[in-house]
């Protein structure tokens, strides 16, 4: 049964050796992903969502980084594999769309070259075929006049166009899993809508699975089937998108949902805030990392770390000693 899963992540932990000591950016994360499914990873900055998404595909920094646990992409164990071994799946099995199209494209290389490079190196295409395919890809991601754009430099394109190019590069070798790390964060709302629609459409067309990493709950709400909520490097709640939005049990999930302003709210609606600041990862308490900011925290929360435990709905789990009642949906606006 588990063979059917495209991605199996088990007990994945990423630690950086820093000047201030060991910093565990991702701690004991486990989840899985079906084929042709879209999963959202949600968290604030420093929650470890970006590090997690990179560790899953083995793309963490090469120096001063330790990874333990397991991440299996379509039968390939990423953790412990050498860079050379991982190169056999990068691009062809799993590819990544980065947050900032400004910095994720090589500024001094024509965009066409950046697309067909993967085709030639990984798929062994000749120059001519690769160019033809690259132009096809540019067309696929909705870039007008792709033949001319093929020889443009990234600096000559707008932000939205650049992000389309980044997507074209990621799709070049037809990966089964697409990791999208904040793919729309730097973009304007109208462009964001275009890009999200494009990703949705391509996912259906190319039968991919997508992991959507974002801080924006609005992005994951309607585009994913399941969600993982992260805080201080750990999963604090996971379940179907509806369960996480309507039946969340973890106070942090609720606080996150309530603290962001909504377009549908009347102006001057008082926002619910989470007191305090995100924790210092170098100096975590032995208990729940959210406890210092949590209104429900008890002594146990400060001393003992809660593990993920199942809620009533299938696949819904949360890590909390004092979870919200099961009918928590009443608190959602």
């Amino acid at each position, binding site marked *: 049964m588990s063979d059917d899963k495209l991605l199996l992540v088990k007990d994945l932990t990423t630690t950086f050796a820093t000047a201030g000591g060991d910093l565990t950016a991702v701690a004991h994360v486990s989840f899985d992903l079906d084929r042709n499914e879209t999963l959202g990873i949600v968290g604030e900055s420093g929650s470890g969502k970006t590090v997690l998404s990179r560790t899953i595909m083995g793309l963490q920094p090469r120096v001063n980084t330790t990874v333990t646990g397991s991440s299996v992409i379509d039968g390939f164990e990423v953790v412990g594999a050498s860079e050379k071994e991982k190169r056999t799946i990068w691009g062809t099995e799993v590819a990544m769309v980065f947050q900032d199209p400004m910095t994720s494209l090589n500024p001094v290389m024509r965009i066409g070259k950046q697309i067909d490079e993967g085709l030639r190196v990984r798929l062994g295409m000749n120059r001519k075929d690769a160019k033809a395919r690259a132009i096809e890809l540019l067309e696929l991601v909705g870039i007008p006049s792709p033949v001319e754009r093929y020889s443009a430099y990234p600096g000559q394109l707008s932000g939205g166009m650049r992000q389309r190019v980044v997507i074209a590069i990621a799709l070049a070798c037809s990966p089964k899993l697409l990791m999208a790390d904040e793919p729309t964060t730097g973009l304007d709302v109208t462009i964001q809508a275009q890009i999200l629609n494009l990703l949705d459409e391509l996912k259906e067309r190319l039968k991919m699975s997508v992991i959507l990493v974002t801080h924006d709950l609005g992005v994951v709400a*309607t585009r994913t089937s399941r969600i993982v909520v992260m805080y201080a490097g750990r999963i604090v709640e996971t379940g179907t998108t509806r369960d996480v939005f309507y039946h969340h049990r973890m106070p942090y999930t609720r606080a996150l949902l309530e603290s962001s302003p909504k377009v549908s709210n009347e102006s001057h609606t008082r926002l619910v805030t989470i007191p305090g600041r995100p924790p210092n990862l170098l100096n975590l308490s032995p208990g729940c990392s959210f406890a210092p900011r949590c209104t429900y925290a008890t002594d146990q929360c400060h001393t003992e770390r809660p593990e993920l435990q199942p809620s009533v709905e299938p696949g819904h789990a949360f890590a909390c000693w004092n979870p919200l009642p099961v009918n928590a949906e009443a*608190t959602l606006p």
Partner: protein
Amino acid sequence: MNAPRTPLLSVTDLEVTFHVHGHAVSAVAGVSFEIYEGETLGLVGESGCGKSTTGKALMRIVEPSKGTVELEGVNITKESGKALRSARTRMQMIFQDPISSLNPRRRVKDIVAEPLDCWKTVTGVERDKLISDLLSKVGIDPSVYGNRYARQFSGGQCQRISIARSLAMRPKLLICDEMVSALDVSVQAQILNLLEDLKAEYGLTLLFIAHDLAVVKNVSDRVAVMYLGKICEIGPADTLYESPAHPYTEFLLGAALEADPDSPINAQVLQGEPPSPMNPPSGCRFRTRCPNATQRCADEEPLPQEVAPNHMVSCHYPLTIHHKSTTPTVLEG
């Protein structure tokens, strides 16, 4: 909100032109609006629409090429030297990047005291007391943090310090330029609430510039929407959001993502990208992307017309205003 009808700030026909490689780029192309005492005007638009430039031109951080800015009846565009510097203290500005808006090599106390030291209005004990008060007001303990260097603070704390500094001279008008867009949601909510509290306490008037529609609605009494250097619509926040009259506003609102899995995915997405401000379209600047555009839109620039009380729109074919009865579904305070 019942704002008294004396404009604190009137902006008439403001234009800002930059020169890039000998080409004139009209970043702000004839903007007029008024801000009444005690209200918050939200200025929203996508990147490059000139909203930030407008804010900076009001303070004359960038020089307007045309138009007038009157603060309490005094024309700021005519002032220079000491009079200009003094006029600036009656308006204050808070910037997007909280970390770069504080000098990393100065102590927090000195940063907050900067305006007082510039003008020598208060000195000695009185000065220290005032600084301590301000810091406490924004939630920074002056006895613990006052002597620390700015470089040791997180983004949210830096933004608090910026706010304290901006209040030192008791300004009338506060211009907030994307002040929460670099912050995490949980911190963003804290800062927005703090801003509302301080606005009431200090009797401030706000110009709130941001790209996030939900945030703008949350703080504003009235909202102005900018597109390519011009204001296309301005009106009371709640009615403008509920029933936009300009097609661009409608697209913008349609693209805003709600953190709710049940919200419909808006199929009608604004296509294309804004034209270059170096070579703006004739007539209505939005016509190149507007589904309703006709020849008239290319020939004739639409002038602002009132479609509802205090609700102005610059469009030849405004959408019909309909007032739904608003039933707020907010269940908590």
